[in-house]
Each structure stands twice: as structure tokens, then as C-alpha cells.
């Protein structure tokens, strides 16, 4: 579904990604784990075209996207929940969600809004409340809901569990699994490697901007090196 081939990304003169190749198959949960500063977020943002890949190819559903404008990439059927959620804090839950379906028709947006609200009943309760007044977990749900509003086939999730209480993390991961059942392909970037690998079909390990390992979720969970480096022994 999404294929990165030999992708390198630079911040000025500093190379953040080194010839990364990676593939996401339709219907799976793919996870990318790695330490702080390994380049996980850069990889995800490179897919979105900001920063732009300096070399290599990114192909989504058979269409090369690495030269497209970010706003055009995001209209191809993928959506992102960025690290730190980035909800529009001065806007209401409703307005935040509607921003997610900006380029969809009114009818599509209305139908998808119903769907998102059944997925997140909490957002329905908070419908007219400003995004910034909600708890971290609710904001994360809003960010995911907003991304779903564009009816993406591929959802990119960057650290959805960051800074949340264990119980809320559990809820978020349940939602991710439910989305997969609904047919959304998921690319999950996580520092919470244990949790991520447990629900993932496959995973990649990123170190200093290079993919150093890949395999099924279970295989990585049981790998000695992965255990030592990311799962606390």
C-alpha cells in the first residue's frame, strides 16, 4: 500500500534518515520502534512531505507522492495523528473534527462524523467544548477522530500513548485494533515498544536514521537485542 524505497531526509546538512526502505501492506498494523531521536517522527513526516525526502521514492497505492505538496499528499487517502496531538485548542470539538474533513463533501463529512462519534462517545459528550479544555486522553481521541474524518485508508499515528495514563493508553490501543478491523491500515510509531509490538503484525526498528531490523511483532518481541534495547531486558 505504501512503499518507501531508499529514502533519505536531511535537516539542513544533517542527515536524519539514511536510505530507509519500508513497506506497509493493506490491512495490517505496522509499527516502527526506536529510541528518542532515532528519526521515527522524521520518517513519518517525510511520508507527509514535510520535510521532503531528498532522495528515494515514496509510493502510495501505486502513485509516487514524494514530489507532491503536503496538502495534496494528505488528500490521497492517508491521514496523520502527529506527535503532541496538535489539536486546535481554541476551536470546539465539532470544529476540530470538521477540519479533518475539510476537502470532503458536506454529506461525506456528516456521515463520517456520525461514525467517529460512535467510535468515541466521549467526543460526543464534549461536542461543543473547546479542544484545549479537555484532558490529554480526550485530546488524543480528538486527534485520532479528526484524522479519521477524511476517511483515510492509511492512518499514521505518532506516539499516541505519549503522556497518557495507563488506563487511557489501553483504550487508545483498543481503538487502534478496532480501526484495523474496520479495514484501516495503521502505521504506528511508538516508544512504548512492548505495547506496540503486541498489537502489530509487523515491526521495524529504527536506529540513528537507519532501519536495523524488521520482522513480525512476535519475533521482535522475543528478539534478544530488541528486548535489551527497547523492552527493558
Amino acid at each position, binding site marked *: 500500500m505504501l512503499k518507501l524505497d531508499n529514502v533519505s531526509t536531511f535537516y539542513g546538512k544533517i542527515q536524519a534518515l539514511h536510505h530507509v526502505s519500508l513497506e506497509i501492506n493493506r490491512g495490517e498494523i505496522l509499527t516502527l520502534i526506536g529510541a528518542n531521536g532515532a528519526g521515527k517522527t522524521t520518517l513519518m513526516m517525510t511520508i507527509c512531505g514535510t520535510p521532503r525526502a531528498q532522495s528515494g521514492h515514496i509510493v502510495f497505492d501505486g502513485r509516487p507522492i514524494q514530489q507532491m505538496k503536503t496538502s495534496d499528499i*494528505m488528500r490521497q487517502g492517508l491521514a496523520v495523528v502527529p506527535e503532541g496531538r*496538535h489539536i486546535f485548542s481554541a*476551536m470546539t470539538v465539532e470544529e476540530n473534527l470538521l477540519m479533518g474533513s475539510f*476537502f470532503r463533501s458536506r454529506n461525506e463529512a456528516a456521515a463520517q462524523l456520525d461514525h467517529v462519534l460512535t467510535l468515541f462517545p466521549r467526543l460526543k459528550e464534549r461536542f461543543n467544548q473547546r479542544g484545549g479544555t479537555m484532558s490529554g486522553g480526550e485530546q488524543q481521541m480528538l486527534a485520532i477522530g479528526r484524522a479519521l474524518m477524511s476517511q483515510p485508508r492509511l492512518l499514521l499515528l505518532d506516539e499516541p500513548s505519549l503522556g497518557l495514563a495507563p488506563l487511557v493508553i489501553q483504550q487508545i490501543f483498543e481503538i487502534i485494533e478496532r480501526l484495523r478491523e474496520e479495514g484501516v491500515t495503521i502505521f504506528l510509531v511508538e516508544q512504548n515498544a512492548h505495547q506496540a509490538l503486541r498489537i502489530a503484525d509487523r515491526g521495524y526498528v529504527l536506529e540513528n536514521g537507519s532501519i536495523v531490523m524488521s520482522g513480525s511483532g512476535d519475533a521482535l518481541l522475543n528478539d534478544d537485542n530488541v528486548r535489551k534495547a527497547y523492552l527493558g531486558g
Partner: protein
Amino acid sequence: MTETSLYVLQQLINGLTIGSTYALIAIGYTMVYGIIGMINFAHGEVYMIGTYTAFITIIGLFTMGVSSLPVVLLLALMTAIIISSTYGYAIERVAYRPLRGGPRLIPLITAIGMSIFLQNYIRLAQGSRDLAMPALISGGIEFGDPDVFEVSLSWMQLIIWGVTLASMTALALFISRSRLGRACRACAQDLKMANLLGIDTNRIIALTFVIGAALAAIAGVMLGLYYGTINPYIGFMAGLKAFTAAVLGGIGSIPGAMLGGLILGITEAMTAAFFPSEYKDVVAFSLLVLILLFRPTGLLGKPEVEKV
């Protein structure tokens, strides 16, 4: 009523009139700042171009024998809006967009350059002398005590209030209710995230320039008719005043620009009432200095959070 209170009432009417136009121009500064964090110092020139467009349209229609007042006014307003908006769009496209992403100082200097360029361009094209705007709307109502002090409220002033109120209401509805207005707010809050939701942020930025220019053109037509004379330099002072109004209200905040404009207009009128009128600019800009010293975020502005 005493003479003083009638006099104050008169100045309040005058101040509200000028303040309304400051508010209209200030919207352009505040919306652009709100979304890309730059001060578009060429905005005053867009206002001036609106005034000149209206002047040329009015003279042209008179020459062609069109004398119906509503037709002349409406056409003058429409052409001014269209031409100014085109300039607003072109300025952003040519002078600012290529510099986006660079250090903040660079577009600021470009804006000053753009302002000087437009001023001199109009000076060369139209001459630097004062032009007399035909007095299309005269008369008004007078009240108060004829023996003490007569307060006059001209039709032109009433029109300025009415048109300002209508424009502001339209803008407020657009921003709060419409899909594009929502996108404008989203971009002002988090440009990068808006981009990640598939919004072409360059278009939204261009839209804010166009809206600001259109409102400045409306102010330009009305102030041209109100004052009766125009020259290529009127944009400079009007721009500075509107900028002061925007900072006073809290730059980035649309209600702030409206409030700031009215406060500035009334302050000026009151200064002119009790001191030699040359002091009104001194007071207006002292106000700017005081705000920057004691409340840099303005009356309705929020403290700036450094975006990561």
C-alpha cells in the same frame, strides 16, 4: 446640555467615524499577522490604491454621463475592492510567498520596500499633488442648542458607521460560521497541522491578504469621500494608525482590531478637542509606545506561545 458636553459629543461622533475606518484597515494587519506572523507594511498602500481607484471610477463615470448617485457609489466601491484585492493578492504572491520559511526580518524589510515602491508608483502614475474627491454625499443632521453649540452628524458619517458595521458583521460571520473561515482560524492556530489535514495553506494565506485588502479598500473609498482630498502619501499615515490600532487591540485578534480602531479614533478626536489638533498624532503614537511597554499583547491579545 452644556457647551462642553455637546462639544465632547461632537468629537465622539468624529472619533467614532475615523475609528471605524482604522478598524477596517487594522483587520488586514491583524489577520495577516495572526496567520504568518508578519507585519504587512504595504497594507496602507493597498488602502491608498483603493482610494485612487474609487477616484478614477467616479471621475470616469461622471465623464461618461452616469450621474445616479447610488450607481456611482456602488461601482466605485466595487472597483476599489476588486483592484485593491488584486494588489493584495499580487503583493503576497510576488513579494512574500517566495520568502516564506526564512528569517522573520526578511519579509518585514520586503514589506517596507513594497510600500515605498507602491507609493512612488502611484505618485508617478497619478501625480503627487492633492486631488479633490467630488463631494458625492453632503448634508446631514444637526442637533443641540443653536445658541450654545450645534452638533452635526453628516450623512457621510452615518454611511461610514453603517458600512463598517455591515462589513464587520459579514467578516465575523464568515470567520465563525463558514468552512473557509474555520480554515482561517485553524491556520492561525497551527499552520503546519492545517497543512497536514490537506489544507492548501498558501491559499488560505492568500485569502487573508485578499480579505484585508478588500476591507482596506472599503475604508479607502469612504475616507476619500469623507476628507475630500487624496494624495499618494495618505496610505502611510493611515497604515501606521491602523497598525497602532491592531497592536492596541492585540495583534492577531480580529475583535481586538475592531476595538483598537475605535479606541484610537476616539482618543485622537478627544485630544484634538482639548489640545491643539497637531497633538493627536503624538498622543496616538504615545499610546502605541505605552501599550508596547506595559501590555505588549494588547487589550484582547493572548500571550504568544512559541510554536514548536
